[in-house]
């Protein structure tokens, strides 16, 4: 056998299969997108939907679709991607399949920053929307640094277990702070914060999409360009050093990307946990552990999950809405427990 065709038929088949799977998830997202657009307090029939999309709808239909539903769906797509990629990175860096921005307390860190902001500037309409992702990023970043420092032991570095346990502890501490803050809010603001914390896609207008988009557009390509680094980090500290990876530097960059993605999503969607956990797992089941396939698949699966959760949340208790975060937790927590029961250590 010559070297040129050493990539075996099996490898080529696997590559084609992975591409096919990625496309299938993409198609599912489009289908879900259509369903989601027609779901809600006022239903749109498929014909009405198509007509409105092509600019031939009534004024009422236009408002519902373009001002309420569409931005919201776009946000859930973006947030789902961001959280899923953030989770994939955290799982790769910590070599722990149970890492997720929610479990690690990064979401709550972003949350507490946003909540502080809301409690000091209560009127949300006046709140500078573009400021929120930065705020959330600062909160998430501070928390991540805190967790990293607390879990770091000189000479031993970061053990995945210690990282998780530290994350759980820090999250507990932050939720205590949140309780204190909650009590100082007026009832109206309280209801708003509660809904936001439960993970409602509340920023349903285009300015939120614009606030979120640059983060996604910058951070996702960086994450993808680091696929090879993630593959290597995944082997463990010693093999990665042996292969010539500047571990500390790369780990820091990757963590910053993960934190940025999580922070930006929390700022518009509140505390949506478990997407960052489930999406990488499902993706790994589909396309394997190589991050060149894993990252895009996880991103798409994350979007699909979040659109679905948001649609279910809007539909299940009509006319009131269940925040998507609750729907995700109700699906995600049992899945997490299942993974935990299956895990080896």
């Amino acid at each position, binding site marked *: 056998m010559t070297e040129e065709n050493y990539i075996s038929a099996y490898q080529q088949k696997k590559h084609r299969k992975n591409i096919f799977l990625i496309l299938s998830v993409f198609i599912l997202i489009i289908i879900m997108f259509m369903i989601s657009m027609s779901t809600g307090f006022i239903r749109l029939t498929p014909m009405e939907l198509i007509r409105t999309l092509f600019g031939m709808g009534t004024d009422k239909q236009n408002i519902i679709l373009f001002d309420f539903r569409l931005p919201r769906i776009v946000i859930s797509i973006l947030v789902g991607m961001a959280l899923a990629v953030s989770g994939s990175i955290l799982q790769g860096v910590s070599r722990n399949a149970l890492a997720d921005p929610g479990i690690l307390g990064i979401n709550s860190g972003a949350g507490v920053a946003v909540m502080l902001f809301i409690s000091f500037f209560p009127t949300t309409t006046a709140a500078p929307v573009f400021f929120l992702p930065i705020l959330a990023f600062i909160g998430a970043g501070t928390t991540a640094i805190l967790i990293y420092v607390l879990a770091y032991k000189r000479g031993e570095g970061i053990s995945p277990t210690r990282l998780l346990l530290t994350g759980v502890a820090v999250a507990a501490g932050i939720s205590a702070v949140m309780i204190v803050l909650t009590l100082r809010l007026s009832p109206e603001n309280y209801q708003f914060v509660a809904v936001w914390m439960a993970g409602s896609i509340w920023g349903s207008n285009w300015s939120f999409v614009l606030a979120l988009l640059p983060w996604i557009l910058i951070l996702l390509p960086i994450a993808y360009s680091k696929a090879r680094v993630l593959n290597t980090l995944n082997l463990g500290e010693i093999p990665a050093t042996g292969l010539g990876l500047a571990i500390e530097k790369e780990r820091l960059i990757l963590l910053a990307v993960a934190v940025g993605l999580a922070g930006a999503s929390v700022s518009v969607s509140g505390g949506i946990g478990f997407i960052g956990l489930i999406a990488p797992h499902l993706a790994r089941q589909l396309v394997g552990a190589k991050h060149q396939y894993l990252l895009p698949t996880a991103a798409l699966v994350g979007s699909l999950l979040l659109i679905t959760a948001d649609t279910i949340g809007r539909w299940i208790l009509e006319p009131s809405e269940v925040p998507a975060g609750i729907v995700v937790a109700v699906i995600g927590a049992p899945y997490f427990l299942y993974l*935990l029961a299956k895990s080896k250590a």
Partner: protein
Amino acid sequence: MSDSVEESIDLKKVYKGSRPIIATFILMGGTIGLLFSIGLSVSFGAADIDFATVWSAVFQFNPNLTTHQIIQDIRLPRVLGAGLVGVCFAVAGSIMQGMTRNPLADSGLLGLNAGAAFMLAICFAFFPGLPYMYIILFSFLGAALSAGIVYGVGSLAKGGLTPMRLVLAGAAVSALLGALSEGIAIYYHIGQDLAFWYAGGVSGTKWEHLKVMSPWIIAAIIGAIMLSKSITLLSLGDEVAIGLGQRTGKIKFFGSVVVLVLAGAAVSVVGAVGFVGLIVPHLTRFLVGNDYRWIIPCSAILGSLLVILADFAARMINPPYETPIGALIALIGVPFFLYLARKGGKEL
């Protein structure tokens, strides 16, 4: 015959590490400290009342005096409630840590508190105005629900209940039930009521609560003390305990029932306060050694002392507002948890 000989040999190792003198001192000193802190807590508050008035309010109650009324109707039940809650969390934590040999076991971390709180959210939403007698039953049920899930996950897994698995399962169950509670809260607009009740600590305790919960707690404590010798054995590991002829399944079952009653009762009064059951047993073990016959009563005393003082502090920090007691205890609890996670780096 031979069994008991073997048992006494092996247990010597454990008892050697126990320090009955210190334990006795804790029990006596702790009781005095407890009485003192109850007195302290009752006399200070929005209106300061001197000790003599407190004394007469308790023993020569005069319904016409406002101060007497404050003491009898508000402060006394509150302090006693705090004490009982402390006893519950601490003893439940001790039993869990002993039975699972898990240094991170605590009713809050393992999701029992969230389970009880979830059931309370259901009570608030669907049966408003339900008498406390029934609420406490729901609370037990909730604790049992999450305990069932957490232990189920742990025992299904290869390698059993490792500390990390328990904590993560607890976190996931808390997240799940927390999300459901939030959903209910948002849907029925009872959110802030629940939040106040979560955070408000023992301030709302009434005599009625104490009357309902005391018998449960007393029965559970008696049960805990009866189990204490077996728990000492279990803390050496399942295999050792079975080797010494113990029916571990039975002990674990009764132990779990005691834990559920204690955690459920405490949560029904104070809400989902964590970390008491984590800190106190560790502290007690550090002081009195590894014999659960001493650990359980001593941690009961120290637990109630901790919660009474925390409640006192919660009132004094920023009067007339109350700082949430759960947040206050988390302030001590989180660093302690981090310390344990760091220390136990290897075996965790």
